[in-house]
């Protein structure tokens, strides 16, 4: 077969879009003809280059420019872009950098001042120190308990004394009050009581009205 005819079919042969008979014809020719075979190889390389050819990406600002010039509406931003716009970009400003530096410095100084206290607190957490603290606490608690017990006993004694005194006072007062009463009772026992007089009087009246049988 003629090489020029093969060249005409070469592209379709590489795409396997030729009829089966023609595919066989071209394949057999390529086996026999080195120049056509080399050309087919180069065409394969060209196709491979075309498929690997890089594609340009459109810059988002360029898309925005087109949209503003057509519909007048700005580009819809993705969540990531909005996140960058509102959070990441402000964080990357010089103002934020200065603020962050000052805050870091302040934090470092604060930590530096706090470290001795923290280390002291940490050393107090050793087992020996804990036992000592516990012992001191128990002793203090026991002492407080004793004090409270003594105070309670004292209060109790004071109360009992007060109670006895009060009771004695009351009894003496009552005795003093009972004294004249008993004296009057004794004097009344010699004389007829006054309150019986009307009875006697009434009985007298009755005696007068009703003659004894």
């Amino acid at each position: 077969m003629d090489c020029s005819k093969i060249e005409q079919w070469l592209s379709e042969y590489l795409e396997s879009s030729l009829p089966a008979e023609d595919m066989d014809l071209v394949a057999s020719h390529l086996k026999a003809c080195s120049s056509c075979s080399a050309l087919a190889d180069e065409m394969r390389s060209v196709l491979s280059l075309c498929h690997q050819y890089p594609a340009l990406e459109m810059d988002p600002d360029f898309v925005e420019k087109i949209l503003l010039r057509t519909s007048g509406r700005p580009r819809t931003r993705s969540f990531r872009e909005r996140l960058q716009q509102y959070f990441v970009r402000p964080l990357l400003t010089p103002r934020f950098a200065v603020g962050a530096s000052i805050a870091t410095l302040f934090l470092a100084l604060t930590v530096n001042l706090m470290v001795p206290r923290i280390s002291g607190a940490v050393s107090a957490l050793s087992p020996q120190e804990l036992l000592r603290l516990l012992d001191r606490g128990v002793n203090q608690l026991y002492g407080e308990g004793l004090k409270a017990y003594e105070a309670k006993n004292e209060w109790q004694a004071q109360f009992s004394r007060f109670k006895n005194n009060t009771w004695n006072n009351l009894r003496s007062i009552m005795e003093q009050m009972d004294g004249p009463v008993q004296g009057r009772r004794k004097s009344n026992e010699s004389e007829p009581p006054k309150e019986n007089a009307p009875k006697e009087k009434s009985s007298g009246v009755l005696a007068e009205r009703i003659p004894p049988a």
Partner: protein
Amino acid sequence: MLSGDTKLVERCLHGDDSAWEMLVNSYGKRIYNLSYRYTNRKDEAEDLTQDILIRVYQNLKSYRAESGSFQNWILRVARNLIIDHYRQVRRFPQAGGSEELETMNIQDDRAPNPQRVAEQAEASLFLQSGLQSLSPELKEAIVLRDLEGMAYGDMAELLNVPEGTIKSRINRGRLELAKLLMRRRSQLGMQG
């Protein structure tokens, strides 16, 4: 896809700006890359992309879903403006510098290997210069098919030529690039 784009166009015509933004996001990058393939300059490609999208926005009312896909319609608008631009400039685009290649966002998830990046940059430079050496018709066919991945049917509809013609142009373009690559390899072999 077709119905989705048509719905977006309808929403645009009813004043929904978010629908227009979705269309720009869908087709902007493609138009930008197409413009870059033709102009080979980023600044010109940006200007062209902007002009194309403004023209599309202004002429959305003229789109008829019955007459074809929105993709082909928008690419036709783009192609017409790119051809107008080419006629105005009246020159073959200059090959872009390596600086522009470095700024390209290479879509590769693998870890950046310096040797691989260098090879890719070299291959891209070769392809760019090779494309500039092709005639506009062949270049257009290669760009749409091999760089943009368009189907033959869509290309025939877009360029308004039979599918056989499209295939022929693509084959010729690929052959020229293959021969160019072959010559380059032989030159490098002689130098080495």
